[in-house]
């Protein structure tokens, strides 16, 4: 088929004059066919659910079917906000994410700066491997690791630390006070290594001439770090922070669901929007709350991502998403 018009068929520079829309479509039919499976997957996995957001304005009743269910306007949202849970859940989601952003950014940058000072290649590679490993295991396995420490009957902390030193054992999975700290520690343990690798890649990319010039001028290690390395890292720190703020309404479902073992006693301090929607949908079966809370999250998330992206674009246009 392409033998008929060998030059115009492909080249980006030489364009066909024939503007007949059907011929234009046919000319690229092979590219359409290549793109088609991807287009269909996005349709099923992303676009159909998007159209499903109208469900938030219906009272879903499976016996009547999706189309037969009644329209209720904003009633679902009214109920959602009447429960009072929603404010606590939103606060949990946003506050945890803020703390994660601050702690993870600070620790990742610190680690990257220190890692850059490790001269032995083999040692450096070992450190990188061991701090990346937590990133590559599933939250289910993380839940096992945490359980190893916190198992109330046999766990390391109760049996090997608290009891021998004469303290009372703690029923960890029933004591909400400790969980903000536990979740922050687990989250850092899992993500700091990965974050520091990104910053390390930036540090390695800095032109060595800056440091040579600084040394000639008599700048010591500390001066070089604060006056050259850190200023180079600040733009990427700002961008990554902004991108995380764009996702501040989305919690890490696995962290809050698996690591807490979905314990009801801990809900006050561990329930976030994602676990709330999941429990409403698949545990208590309250689809109206699930759909309205889900839509709230989607819309606010969309506004945040788009505005953050505009900000990122002003700082560095090639780091922006669009």
């Amino acid at each position, binding site marked *: 088929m392409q033998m008929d018009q060998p030059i115009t068929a*492909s080249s980006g520079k030489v364009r066909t004059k024939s503007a007949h829309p059907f011929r234009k479509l046919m000319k690229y039919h092979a590219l359409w066919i290549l793109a088609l*499976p991807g287009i269909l997957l*996005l349709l099923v996995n992303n676009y*159909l659910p998007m159209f499903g957001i109208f469900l938030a304005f219906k009272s879903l009743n499976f016996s009547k079917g999706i189309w037969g269910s009644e329209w209720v306007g904003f009633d679902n949202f009214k109920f959602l906000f009447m429960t009072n849970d929603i404010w606590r859940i939103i606060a949990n989601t946003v506050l945890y994410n803020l703390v994660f952003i601050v702690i993870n950014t600070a620790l990742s940058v610190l680690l990257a700066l220190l890692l850059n000072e490790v*001269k032995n290649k083999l040692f450096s590679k070992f450190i990188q491997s061991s701090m990346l490993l937590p990133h590559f295991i599933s939250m289910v396995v993380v839940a096992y690791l945490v359980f190893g420490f916190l198992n109330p009957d046999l766990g390391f902390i109760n049996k090997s630390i608290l009891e021998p030193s004469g303290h009372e054992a703690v029923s960890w999975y029933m004591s909400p006070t400790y969980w903000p700290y536990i979740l922050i520690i687990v989250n850092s343990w899992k993500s700091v290594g990965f974050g520091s690798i990104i910053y390390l890649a930036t540090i390695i990319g800095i032109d060595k001439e800056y440091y040579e010039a600084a*040394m000639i001028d008599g700048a010591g290690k500390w001066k070089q770090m604060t006056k050259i390395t850190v200023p180079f890292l600040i733009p990427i720190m700002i961008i990554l922070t902004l991108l995380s703020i764009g996702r501040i309404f989305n919690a890490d479902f696995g962290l809050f669901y698996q690591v807490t073992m979905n314990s009801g006693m801990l809900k006050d301090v561990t329930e976030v929007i994602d676990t709330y929607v999941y429990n409403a949908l698949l545990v208590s079966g309250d689809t109206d709350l*699930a*759909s309205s809370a889900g839509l709230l999250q989607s819309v606010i998330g969309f506004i945040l991502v788009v505005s953050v992206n505009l900000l990122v674009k002003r700082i560095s246009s090639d780091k922006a*998403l669009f």
Partner: protein
Amino acid sequence: MKTSNRTNPFIILFFILFSAASLLPFWLILMVSLTGQNALVKFGYSFWPKEFDLAAYRFLWHDAEPILRAYGVSIFVTVIGTVVSLFVTSALAYTLSRNDFPFRGALSFYVLFTMLFGGGLLPWYLVYTKFLHLNDSLLALIIPGLLGGFNVFIMRTYFTTSIPPSLVDSAQIDGASEYRTYFSIVLPLSLPVLATIGLFVIVAYWNDWFTSLVFISNDKLYNLQYFLYNTLMNAQYLQAIASKAHIDSASDRILPMEQLQMAMAMIAVLPVAMVFPFLQKYFVKGLTVGAVKG
């Protein structure tokens, strides 16, 4: 240029402690899985057991059927999912990378928009269960992970920056069809980006438990992660499996539940922990791939 080749000893000490903090939880789980029943009851979990015992691993070795099946589901889903994902992602990315494709902008936006807005869990769940009727099928574990907008853009950036357009042009002047160009020129030249994305996809499939949590209730279709989730959350589940098995029936010992639990966690971590240090450079490369623009 004079730089000292010695690392500050405090930094070395710091990183020894830091690596230990990263690895010790795994060590604890390994040791629990090797602790004998009596020592476990008496001293709890510890970093060095008073009594070593391989009973848990013996059980897994002899009565491994449910675990082997879960492993099989995980391997099957990961292999099929990754292969299909790489084809679908790269084919879409190839179309998007062609300057002369007239609907490039619109199609880019079609992909980009999925990264900005989502319908949420409920509509997504209904599409898979009430519309496609895929609950309790392996397809429900494969399809959701096949295509991500971010991966499409990473590949498209690679195609536009690393494959000279003149190469594509000259192949087509020589009469190669689009399919041939994609299969025998673009894909072979893109092995680095295929490896990088492929590794991300493998890890995502291997670690996935969420789709099982939502869609799977038939325990024959549990993947490894979901199997582990069930044995942790629900002690009776493990007990039921163990009672069906016939470990050491002659000596009729109590089955070591706690060790068994932790031994299963170990055999789930093992493949990742053994493979990934060797593939680490691809991951790092994947993190630093160039700008992603729609």
